[in-house]
């Protein structure tokens, strides 16, 4: 059993002294270079499909995405070779089904999101209620011995935590969502997700990189002074913390959380300064009262804090900041393709100034992400060359090391080798 105890868990927690030598806090993870094979191997990818993605809770969005009965979204779970419809039922409850007609298997829903009264298949017209029950079959009398009540859409387990909708491909998962998240989310309890989800922006892209190559790039601040030199380094580094060392972090059995540094002396550029008069951004929210943040966000209560990250295994992350948050999803497509989706959330804008502020924050975030995107494809391009077999990681890259270990614990590729 790995360390499940968060360290700083409240206002009185002692400042973490180990914040540049994280490997010392988690000796069981070792310090050796990690193998490149999991980032390129098709065999490894096939095992991830079977042993991870079919066996865990996966976030597919927020309740605000489907506020009214009949609202639905479709999650393309290419990694599990399926597509899942998540719909708000007549009574307000949320259902999830494989997007597959019980007749001859046509996809029941063809778009990514929408609203409907029922699902009607566009092949022969079989019709299903929002609860997945089969309600109508054209020319039904011509079928022999059909058990209509057993021919509903195939359900997928669905549950929510703090407004986040999770599905599990096993309709009767051994582990509840609550148990699954228990080690990581208590610290986030009370964060104003619903208030901050009034305004939602979302981008997605298919990137030519393994899902772990993509995700790992967001698990360390070591690249900030170089890759984000032009855009964000000034806000996230300083003379006293030039390499964006974490303020605190906790690694759990499957999930993890980190607190990132923010430069209190950062002087915003003119438009940034103007925007921040009206609202928070991931780059500037310094000096605001932290009283309304739950104790588990920036647990050491450092004033020079910018943002936390909660990594929900396997492919979802929540970045809570002060007055805004963002999320990433990395959906594997194949060993070297990933759908990367970023969402950024703000409170409802009451006036033009706030709207302008949110626009600036999201545009700057988008541009910072454009810096990240380039390296991911360049890495993938040569990782498969075989020129090198391992990559060395430093203390501040311990989340990459932890992520590798957790994936390997599920996959067992090296077990017994």
């Amino acid at each position, binding site marked *: 059993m790995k360390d499940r105890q968060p360290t700083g868990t409240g206002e009185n927690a002692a400042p973490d002294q180990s914040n540049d030598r994280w490997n010392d806090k988690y000796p069981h993870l070792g310090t050796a270079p990690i193998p490149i094979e999991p980032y390129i191997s098709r065999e490894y990818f096939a095992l991830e499909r079977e042993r991870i993605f079919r066996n865990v809770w996966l976030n597919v969005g927020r309740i605000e995405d489907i506020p009214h009965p009949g609202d639905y979204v479709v999650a393309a779970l290419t990694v599990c070779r399926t597509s899942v419809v998540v719909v708000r039922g007549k009574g307000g409850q949320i259902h999830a089904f494989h997007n597959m007609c019980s007749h001859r298997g046509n996809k029941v829903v063809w778009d990514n999101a929408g609203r409907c009264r029922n699902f009607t298949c566009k092949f022969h017209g079989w019709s299903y209620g929002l609860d997945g029950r089969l309600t109508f079959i054209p020319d039904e009398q011509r079928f022999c011995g059909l058990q209509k009540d057993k021919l509903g859409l195939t359900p997928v387990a669905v549950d929510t935590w703090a407004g986040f909708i999770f599905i599990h491909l096993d309709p009767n998962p051994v582990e509840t969502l609550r148990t699954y998240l228990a080690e990581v989310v208590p610290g986030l309890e009370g964060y104003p997700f619903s208030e901050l989800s009034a305004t939602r922006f*979302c981008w997605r*892209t298919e990137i030519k990189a393994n899902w772990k190559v993509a995700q790992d790039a967001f698990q360390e601040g070591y690249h900030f002074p170089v890759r984000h030199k*032009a855009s964000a380094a000034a806000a996230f580094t300083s003379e006293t913390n030039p390499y964006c060392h974490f303020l605190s972090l906790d690694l759990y059995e499957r999930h993890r959380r980190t607190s990132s540094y923010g430069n209190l002396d950062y002087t915003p550029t003119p*438009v940034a300064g103007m925007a921040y008069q009206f609202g928070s951004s991931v780059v500037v929210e310094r000096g605001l009262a932290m009283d309304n943040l739950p104790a588990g966000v920036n647990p050491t209560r450092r004033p020079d804090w910018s943002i936390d990250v909660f990594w929900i295994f396997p492919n979802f992350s929540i970045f809570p900041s002060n007055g805004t948050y963002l999320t990433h999803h990395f959906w594997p497509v194949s060993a070297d393709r990933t759908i990367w989706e970023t969402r950024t959330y703000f409170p409802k804008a009451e006036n033009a100034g706030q709207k*302008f502020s949110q626009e600036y924050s*999201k545009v700057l975030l988008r*541009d910072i992400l454009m810096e990240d*995107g380039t390296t991911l494809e360049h890495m993938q391009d040569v990782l498969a060359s075989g020129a090198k077999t391992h990559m060395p990681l430093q203390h501040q890259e311990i989340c990459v090391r932890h992520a590798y270990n957790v994936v390997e614990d599920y996959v067992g590729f090296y077990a017994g080798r």
Partner: protein
Amino acid sequence: MPEARLPEQFRDLEQWIGWSLETEGERSDRRQASAMEDITAFYEAMLARMEEVLPYLEQFSLEELPDDAKRLFYLTLSLAEVAPAVEQFGQPSVVDGYDIKRFVASHR
């Protein structure tokens, strides 16, 4: 004289009306397709008026902006769009950046 498209006190910004675009995609396309000197000129002209523009817009509710105010509002969003080009990158696109056309917004 073409019909005025911005509120009277902001007529000096008429020459930038091409930046009055409704969606992030349109604003981003224009930024990527513009010369840096045009972006900088627009940035400077807008920035100089923002202290008046925002209070002017705030007299309306966001849902009920009159057409001329709405065009002005879209100009402020274009200022947000071009700001990183001027303040961070010194060129229209992100330096060594990912192809922004591939980063598809599902919002407006």
